């Protein structure tokens, strides 16, 4: 046949083998690639250590009560450890007392493994994969079939929804009997009780509290260079007129300005002296008539921004104010670009350390919040010392494990448990000093990762937890100058640190969130944008009335009404 190419299909034996092995090889490669893809399909339980070996409770040397019943049919609670060897609780932690980065598994972590010893129950710890967002990880976990017995995350705001959807258990009936320590704690303070209940009066979870109430919630405030004040022979500024003088003096003599990291400054800074409640952040507050108001819609806020604009025009405020972060301000503090600033007590410790190292004689101290010339002080940055994180028990936890779970969570609020959650196991990470106060042992203070890091290896209350954070812990964590600063900010003004705040314990119904969803972000964008424009003078404050008009047309009345309804329900709890 013309044009055709005939091929001989009879090959030599070696060629055949060669071809065959090539086929085998390519099949193998395909199979390997398929497997490589399918590894991505493994189920992610969102946790570590599924088949862990928990250390056996090492005897009852720490229990107050040695009568632990273990083989009874209906065991009565007789103190910790409970010796429930057959019960295992799964506990998912989204933030706060997550695994310290020094450890790969919970077994290595002293806090997590010793807690099991202290309560006498096996705990299967689960954490979101390092680096992932806690809320995302939690939502992923919630979508799966079985949930862990205990979940700890900042879900207080949506708790009504979770209870409706049948995820979170209602603990009201058993709270008093199975968690006596926690129950008496929240009953001791009306605010605590309101926060930890739903609008319908149900108890559901174990929250985070600071021992002294709001002390450390006022962790930021004004800072000043005492050495400059001394050089100029000036007194610590107490009123806004004093601030006028000091700012001008600092500018004339040192060319310095008022500065601060924008993320902290925009919250409120010195708004209290004007009767205002915010600088740029969208903020709702409670006025004297228990009514919810928007801080930016008030004439007092206009006065505040007028003053700030005056200072801005006079060159007394850092022109980089809205782009500063903590690092930038720290540099400015070191370089003498600023002498009067606003930042946190933690940052203050850094500035003091920098000054020491540089040996420039700078003496940074905390300065009290200024009052208006007429004595006004409507508010100071702070809160009630109640966190928005909470530990809840899910409906996946069977009834026979319920009591154990509630007692395990209650442990943190007992005297022994409080010490453990804050400092760790006595004798291991801390012990009493000569004054009878807890003090850390060398293993913590000499930890190469640093003191703050070491504290969170042994305790669970450093950042937030289902426990009460001891004030002593904060004292041990921070330098004396930072503690003094916090005292200066908090104690003189204690009564205005929290009662103006819109409580984070207020919950919204689904319709309410949907209504607010539509308008709040545009309002919050608008007010924060305008705040900056008013301060720099890009917009004139003469147009303030038009500004309020615009807010009203954007839906402000609806926002206030909706939040008011939710707040009223909160008060009625």
């Amino acid at each position, binding site marked *: 046949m013309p044009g055709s190419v005939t091929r001989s299909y009879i090959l030599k034996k070696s060629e055949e083998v060669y071809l065959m092995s090539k086929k085998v090889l390519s099949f193998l490669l395909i199979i390997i690639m398929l497997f490589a893809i399918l590894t991505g399909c493994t189920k992610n339980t969102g946790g570590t250590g599924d088949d862990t070996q928990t250390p056996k409770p090492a005897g009852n040397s720490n229990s107050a009560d040695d009568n632990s019943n273990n083989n009874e049919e209906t065991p009565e609670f007789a103190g910790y450890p409970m010796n429930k060897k057959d019960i295992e609780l799964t506990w998912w932690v989204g933030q706060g007392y997550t695994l310290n980065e020094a450890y790969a598994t919970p077994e290595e972590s002293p806090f997590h493994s010793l807690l099991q010893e202290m309560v006498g129950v096996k705990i299967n710890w689960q954490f979101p994969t390092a680096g992932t967002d806690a809320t995302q990880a939690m939502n992923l976990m919630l979508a799966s079939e079985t949930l862990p017995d205990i979940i700890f995350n900042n879900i207080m705001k949506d708790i009504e929804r979770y209870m409706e959807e049948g995820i979170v258990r209602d603990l009201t009936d058993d709270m008093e009997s199975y968690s006596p320590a926690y129950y008496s704690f929240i009953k001791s303070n009306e605010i605590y009780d309101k926060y930890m209940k739903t609008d319908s009066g149900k108890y559901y979870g174990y929250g985070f509290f600071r021992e002294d109430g709001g002390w450390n919630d006022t962790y930021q405030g004004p800072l000043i260079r005492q050495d400059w004040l001394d050089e100029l022979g000036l007194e610590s500024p107490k009123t806004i007129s004093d601030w006028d003088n000091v700012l001008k003096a600092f500018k004339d003599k040192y060319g310095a300005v008022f500065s601060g990291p924008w993320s902290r400054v*925009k919250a409120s800074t010195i708004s209290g002296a004007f009767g205002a409640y915010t600088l740029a952040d969208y903020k709702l507050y409670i006025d004297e008539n228990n009514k919810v108001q928007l801080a930016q819609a008030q004439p007092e806020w206009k006065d505040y921004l007028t003053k700030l604009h005056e200072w801005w025009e006079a060159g007394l405020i850092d022109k980089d104010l809205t782009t500063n972060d903590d690092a930038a301000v720290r540099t400015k503090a070191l370089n003498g670009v600023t002498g009067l600033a606003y930042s946190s007590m933690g940052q203050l410790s850094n500035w003091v350390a920098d000054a020491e190292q540089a040996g420039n004689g700078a003496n940074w101290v905390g300065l009290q919040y200024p009052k208006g010339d007429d004595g006004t002080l409507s508010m100071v940055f702070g809160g009630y010392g109640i966190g928005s994180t909470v530990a809840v028990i899910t409906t996946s936890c069977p009834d026979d494990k319920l009591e154990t779970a509630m007692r395990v969570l209650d442990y943190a609020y007992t005297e022994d448990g409080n010490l453990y959650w804050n400092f760790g196991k006595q004798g291991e990470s801390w012990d009493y000093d000569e004054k009878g106060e807890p003090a850390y042992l060398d293993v913590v203070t000499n930890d190469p990762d640093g003191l703050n890091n070491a504290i969170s290896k042994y305790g669970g209350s450093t950042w937030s937890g289902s426990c009460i954070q001891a004030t002593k812990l904060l004292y041990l964590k921070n330098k004396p100058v930072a503690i003094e600063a916090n005292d200066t900010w908090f104690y003189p003004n204690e009564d205005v640190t929290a009662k103006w705040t819109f409580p984070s314990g207020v919950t919204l119904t689904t319709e309410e969130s949907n209504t607010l969803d539509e308008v709040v972000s545009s309002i919050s*964008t608008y007010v924060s944008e305008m705040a900056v424009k008013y301060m*720099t003078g890009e917009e004139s404050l003469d147009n303030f009335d038009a500004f309020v008009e615009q807010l009203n047309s954007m839906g402000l009345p609806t926002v206030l009404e909706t939040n008011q309804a939710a707040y009223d329900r909160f008060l009625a709890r």
Partner: protein
Amino acid sequence: MNLVANGNLTTVSRVTGHKTLSHTLQRDFKLNKYKYLIILPIIVYLVLFAYKPMYGLIIAFKDYRPALGIAASKWVGWKHFNNFFHDVYFWRLIRNTFSISGLSILFGFPAPILLALFLNEIRVSWFKRTIQTITYMPYFISMVVVCSLVRTYVQYDGLISQLAVALGGEPQNYLMVNKYFYPIYIISDIWKNIGWNSIIYLAALTSIDQDQYEAARIDGAGRFKQMIHITLPGLLPTITILFILRMGGILNVGYEKILLLYNEGIYEVSDVISTYTYRKGILNAAYSYSTAVGLFNSVVNVTFLLLSNFISRKTTEMSLF
């Protein structure tokens, strides 16, 4: 009729004499079955990770609650889209997004081409390699570090300000002024990506036939004329394809960079769809809303992609598909 295996794919049916699809497919499969087997893992990957998840787009039309799952969440139809389109800032967001994107393409797209052309002209090998390495390096610096550097330079007493003062101007914080935001954004973008993006053009340049250059030199064309008449047309297919792909990402303004650089003072020009949606999402875990916005983004992107592909095909007869 006898049929001969002559390697031609189109087959003729024994009975009717017409080409049929099934015969074509059978033939194709028999000839190429190992090739299909090789790409099977890729197809599985695409189906599992790109196509199957598209089902999740449906949450843009629901009030998604993770605990209820996709199927059981309440259907709300166009609510989230309405919410988005009727937002007070909707037009501003669209304007900013298109501006940033458009200006990025206008200035950021030709830059690597110019760099590649420039590098191509360098004869001194070590110099060329040094320039290449230096321009590649910024690509590997993390965006967070770059933005931190940028913020430091544009501060009131930063490097740029001091330069301006030296030239007789006033110091200022450039990230507080609307009119400087786009230049800052685009220039830092170009600085970071120019080296990396020029790689593909340099690769395309090597495929241009060297004989053409010789012929041009003989005809008396100088370096510049050579570039216009040989190099650029040689690069045109690559440029076209990359341009169409770029248009397909027109609404994807890199939101991390904007988040790191913007502040309330310049929301007017810097607030884009993705940053606004991000802030909105902080209030509640607004999965459905952000999916709706994302879906809108994708629809616009695909429209632009198809449009530019069509225009390209009609004008230059080159296209992606």
